[in-house]
């Protein structure tokens, strides 16, 4: 889609100035005039923006991987700067900043990376499927269908700890709408066995390792001719 950048109008100049000031701060981290509060505000607005971008990216049916990776890495940098005491290991809540009321923003780093990870994992699972055309459909039982971005999945769900994974039912849900009767057919396997079991009953029987001693003796006698056939050959195996 075409860039959203537009020629700036006069009214937007003030916003422009504000963002310029913020940018200038980032370029000069040792700036003496920067109070403790303003970095948090600046970071948090960028954090919000990055989270929105992440949402938007994840909602695509096939996310642009480069865009996604760059946004996530940037988000991690911002989070790291907002929680200076902790290293990247998850902080339950980022340090409180005024705009953190929204549920969207109350996610922890762990939940964020978990949901992103699970969605990337889905991508790789989808890849696994597309490379394995065997009938997985016999797993059968209905579950949630996958499709593109699930229509009802709101932004909150994406960041929720457990619900980020589209495939938490495993692979079962994928093929519920495919007619699997062809794969369930009994014709194939038993038929091949049936064909095999015929010849096996006959002359090959004496080579079957499962024969017990009594049967062996009997067969030997038959072969030698000392004993007529008194009973029909038992079921093979």
């Amino acid at each position, binding site marked *: 889609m*075409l*860039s*959203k*950048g*537009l*020629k*700036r109008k006069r009214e937007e*100049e003030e916003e*422009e100035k504000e*963002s*310029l000031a*913020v*940018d*200038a701060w*980032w*370029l000069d*981290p040792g700036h003496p005039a920067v109070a403790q509060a303003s970095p948090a505000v600046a970071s948090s607005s*960028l954090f919000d*923006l990055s989270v929105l*971008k992440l949402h938007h990216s994840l909602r695509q*049916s*096939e996310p*642009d*991987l*480069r*865009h996604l*990776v*760059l946004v*996530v*890495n*940037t988000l991690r*940098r*911002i989070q790291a*700067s907002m929680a200076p005491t902790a290293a990247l290991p998850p902080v339950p809540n980022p340090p409180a900043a005024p705009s953190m009321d929204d549920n969207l923003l109350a996610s922890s780093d762990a939940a964020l*990376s978990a949901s*992103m*990870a699970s969605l*990337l*994992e889905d*991508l*790789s699972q*989808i*890849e696994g*499927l*597309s*490379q394995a055309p065997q009938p997985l459909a016999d797993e059968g039982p209905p579950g949630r269908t*996958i*499709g*593109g971005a699930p229509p009802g999945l709101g932004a909150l769900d994406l960041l929720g700890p457990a619900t980020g994974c589209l495939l938490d039912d495993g692979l079962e849900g994928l093929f519920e709408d495919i007619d699997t009767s062809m794969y369930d057919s009994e014709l194939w396997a038993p038929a091949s066995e049936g064909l095999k079991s015929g010849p096996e009953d006959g002359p090959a029987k004496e080579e079957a390792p499962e024969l017990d001693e009594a049967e062996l003796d009997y067969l030997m006698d038959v072969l030698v001719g000392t004993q007529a056939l008194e009973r029909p050959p038992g079921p093979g195996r």
Partner: protein
Amino acid sequence: MAGAGGGGCPAGGNDFQWCFSQVKGAIDEDVAEADIISTVEFNYSGDLLATGDKGGRVVIFQREQENKSRPHSRGEYNVYSTFQSHEPEFDYLKSLEIEEKINKIRWLPQQNAAHFLLSTNDKTIKLWKISERDKRAEGYNLKDEDGRLRDPFRITALRVPILKPMDLMVEASPRRIFANAHTYHINSISVNSDHETYLSADDLRINLWHLEITDRSFNIVDIKPANMEELTEVITAAEFHPHQCNVFVYSSSKGTIRLCDMRSSALCDRHSKFFEEPEDPSSRSFFSEIISSISDVKFSHSGRYMMTRDYLSVKVWDLNMESRPVETHQVHEYLRSKLCSLYENDCIFDKFECCWNGSDSAIMTGSYNNFFRMFDRNTRRDVTLEASRENSKPRASLKPRKVCTGGKRKKDEISVDSLDFNKKILHTAWHPVENIIAVAATNNLYIFQDKIN
């Protein structure tokens, strides 16, 4: 190093004097998405110029032979062939639409009368044969002139069909379709110097193909982590060395380039050389990684250097030195203070390409506001030019442009805040021998020539 903006180009010396030659495409203000040009490429001789667009079409222009009776035409490019290369597709398994946008076109070296090129969208690469037909056979025995079959029993005499001239017809036919080898989006294709193989690269993998074989490809690079949660870097571009058929490079979203040698192992996950410039701590920001992401990598024609394009600069690397580039050229440094806004409107993710001239003495890349930048490596001079309809009078010289970065804006300068970020020049191409350049500005293709040519 060369700074942003630049002075004019005095006549004489090594400086170019670029003049408008032609513009292709609709003048309409309302641009159809499908008409947006997504790739531009000259062939090996420069006689053919191919463009691909978002609608999956390829248009090939051919340079007219120089005509003594029209000395000013000086080899104009006119439409030679147009065809639909890729159609939109639907992947039923993943419920995804596959875009028909042509990501890259690469020509094969010409071996006979026909021309061959590779064109690719996100998932499928196609080999196209473009051939001319200017003769037609007449006088068949088994069919009439209008194609109806004759009854063989009615034929009493045989004749030899005669070839008669006809109006030139250029046909494009797909000769190979290389599909189902990429899970992620293809960003690059590159023909090998052996003229038998080529590589295709997506976000996480690079595959090697033989031009004759479509049902198999070899995976030569795979950076997909076992656990996708650990994914932090993707492949952004890849190219074969122009002379050494066993060497290729690929760039990443973290600003690194890896050179691989296919002789050392079948899977080139381990690089032979690793090129990365250490980060300048004074310019570190939240956006450092994004702006370091390499959007294009191109070997010089000599094969001794390679050039990379990141968001704000173009860097030239000597293949023998991995620690830092030998040249860095600032494309639009004035945007550094605007990164937050550019992040907001996603412009910071724009992928600009770059190109060398035939002698490797100059490099060119695009910018915003339909500006493009040219750097002369010998004189260290650079210039900013604009591709616009206003500058489109025949053989009119292009006037250098300057962006005002602060303070009082001089006449003819444009301030950073007035730049139009919708008008981006992402794709440019330089004729392999002469000083002719093709610049794609959204849906228009501009062709400029050097007056001193």
